[in-house]
């Protein structure tokens, strides 16, 4: 976005009668007009025309955004608030005006290559090597599945092996850089990115598969935007499973299943059908759609540094998404993102089971095998 487009977009949005605010998750978390697309645009417009600088609270408002792009779905003039926020954060970081609550995240990624403060040496502690398969595939595990949602990583490897892949999990995989890119620390993110590109390009494999849509989007969109290209095709697990899985003959799964579209997979990457198709093939059940779904899906609350800086608000957003699932009578909520799963599972009670797609698929397959036995 050049400076003229930026000025046009924030001026347009500052004049809008809040036509997308009802879908803005941070509006619903705070119930205030400040953390909304229109609120952010007014602050930036005032700043751009020299009327009022961003004060500390305005900086905070810029960081009270999930960059989920839900507003864009509702915006006829196509004002891209997520990109505007990301550009602004980059500038704030360069001026050393970002919230100090992000320091730990940044330092951890710089030092340990994950945002959780975990030692890099334990990144693949969940992984059990096994040989014998034919086609080599790299599983880019991502930080959340490596450290916080290891059952997803384990399930993914087991599934990929079961459909004939030799799975490579890399000891020297680093954070993809997404948490840093989204919060404005671009040079630090690029250190991670350059390392990953070098490692990935040195491997001979059919494809790289990611379960985390944040990693997926960063690898396929952000890296090339920064002049970094990966030689091997990068695929999201939902797409690969959709291609490889055939429908199960008979399934007696009778629970109501709903699906939560991760923002990075849905709105940012345009993948809506593949995970639904996988769920249908493997369970025999059509997804019962939540009130807001596909390009209109509500964010889970776990993106763009929001949970790091404002954990209570992030959890309120997650809880409200859980309520959406319950409103359609779901017993099972499937998503296709370790990060979303982590948030949603944390907000759900025992009446709703939350799975990431590979976990759900593996669970269904095992169920069927048990039945056959």
């Amino acid at each position, binding site marked *: 976005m050049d400076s003229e487009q930026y000025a046009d977009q924030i001026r347009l949005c*500052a004049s809008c009668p809040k036509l997308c605010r009802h879908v803005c998750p941070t509006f619903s978390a705070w*119930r205030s007009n400040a953390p909304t697309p229109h609120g952010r645009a007014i602050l930036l417009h005032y700043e751009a025309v020299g009327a009022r600088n961003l004060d500390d609270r305005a900086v905070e408002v810029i960081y009270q955004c999930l960059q989920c792009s839900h507003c864009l779905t509702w915006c006829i003039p196509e004002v891209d608030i997520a990109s505007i926020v990301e550009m602004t954060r980059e500038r704030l970081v360069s001026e050393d005006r970002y919230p100090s609550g992000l320091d730990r995240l940044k330092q951890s990624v710089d030092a340990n290559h994950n945002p959780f403060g975990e030692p890099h040496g334990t990144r693949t502690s969940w992984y059990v090597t096994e040989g014998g398969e034919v086609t080599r595939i790299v599983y880019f595990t991502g930080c959340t599945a490596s450290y916080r949602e290891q059952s997803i990583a384990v399930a993914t490897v087991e599934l990929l092996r079961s459909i004939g892949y030799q799975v490579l999990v890399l000891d020297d995989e680093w954070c993809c850089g997404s948490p840093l890119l989204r919060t404005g620390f671009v040079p630090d993110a690029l250190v991670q990115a350059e390392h990953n590109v070098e490692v990935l390009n040195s491997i001979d494999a059919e494809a790289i598969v990611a379960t985390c849509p944040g990693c997926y989007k960063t690898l396929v969109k952000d890296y090339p935007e920064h002049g970094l290209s990966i030689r091997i095709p990068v695929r999201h697990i939902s797409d690969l499973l959709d291609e490889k899985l055939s429908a199960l003959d008979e399934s007696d799964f009778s629970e109501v299943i709903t699906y939560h579209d991760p923002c990075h997979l849905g709105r940012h990457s345009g993948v809506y059908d593949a995970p639904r198709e996988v769920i249908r093939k493997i369970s025999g059940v059509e997804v019962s759609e939540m009130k807001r779904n596909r390009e209109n899906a509500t964010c889970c609350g776990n993106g763009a540094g929001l949970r790091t800086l404002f954990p209570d608000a992030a959890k309120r957003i997650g809880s409200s998404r859980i309520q959406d699932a319950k409103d359609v009578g779901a017993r099972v909520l499937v998503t296709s993102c370790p990060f979303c799963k982590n948030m949603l599972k944390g907000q759900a009670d025992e009446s709703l089971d939350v799975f990431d797609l590979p976990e759900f698929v593996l669970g269904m397959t095992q169920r069927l095998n048990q039945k056959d036995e």
Partner: protein
Amino acid sequence: MIGAKRKTIAAERIAGVIGNDFVTIHETDALLTSVDAWPLSLAKIRAGELIPFADIVAYPHNVEEVSQILAICSELEIPVTPVGGGAGSCGGIIPVYGGLHLDLKRMNRIIGIDHDSMVVRVEAGVVGIDLEEHVNRFGYTTGHTPTSLRASNVGGFLATRSGGSMSSLYGKIEDMTLGLQVVIPDGSIIECKAVPRHSVGPDLKQVFIGSEGTLGVITEATLQLFPIPEERRFRSMCFPDITSGLDAIRSIFRAGIRPSVVRLYDETDTAMSIAPHFEVDDESCMLLLAFDGSRERVALDEQQSANICQAHGAQDYGDGPSRRWWEHRYDMYYPSKFLTSGYSIADTIDVVATYDRLERVYWSMKEAMESEGAIVLCHFSHMYLHGGSMYMIFFSSQPDAESLWSTYERIWHAGIEACHKEGGVMSHQHGVGLTRSTYTEDELGSSFHVLKMIKQALDPKGIMNPGKLGMGVQK
């Protein structure tokens, strides 16, 4: 502005009631809370002018908190401006004398649906679309379809006597409200019980509906629901002029038909809004109709209405223009480059009159506003058995900010004066806010005195939204 010492005391005492997290004195929050959808505010923001903002913003969670806050503000004599969705179109939430912005968005519980009575009880901060989507799940509609549905909330609808585009059938918010809870300035909580009708003195809830935050804070309402209609059908009829269109509309209502939508576009609005999508003759006026109800009833009403229109010289355009308007009804409110570039402004004066003077009000306003250099287009937007409203849209572009502000004021003045001269009433659904505040006394005539006495009795210290509804202007 209320002075640093009082501000600190008030903020601390309010925080004592609702907690520190829900009170702020940050300028950024105060400024953003002041932004509604008043085109003049938005034009000033575009021009880089700061708009007035409150000293303190508070976000109460329930009626008891509202009550305690009002008692504190009464005691400290601090102005209080309630904030709903902040999508009002005439500056109603602008806190001209500073003080407290009481933002009700956290009071967003849908308390419950009574299926036997087909009513819903809601808190004031529930956003219109959230309420509509909620009741839709149970097979109901509120029937309230203003185009601000995504941003405005129930309290705002009530405080401004809002009207949806289907008010011909379902009524305006004042018709839909069976019960009301209000906190008056001394902190007392007033309940007006939910009943369909009563005869126990005047209907006191109507004192507060439309009071725009000047008499108290609306905290809860019981609203009617309707079953989602089995069928909604659209029909469009093009007339040679507005006279024949209005005659046809009157005849439709007299025949006992109640369409849900009745919108007659004048020739300029037809050229601007309809002609880009459908082939229409120059100088013709498009009527958009919709019918809600059972399949048989709707088919009959539609056919009879079409016959009436054709008898008045209309050409049948089928469902196209009407359906398209319904599907794209939000589009015209999105900001466009054209309307936000340079020093430009577009606004609407929505007025209402009985049939005997409706057309005169139209011509007179159009002429008066055009004489101030405005481009004017109009549709008759909400029609009833006895008359209806007009949505007089105007546009002006000027070389600099000062010329725009003064031109804007002159266009408004010319429009309202012409409306009054021909016996119209200056707002049908948007309310008074700041744009019409100084005309309220003229509008209400001798009854303005009654409004002032009610204000004096309920709000003797004049803390509630001072400067609005023509009352409480401070020197």
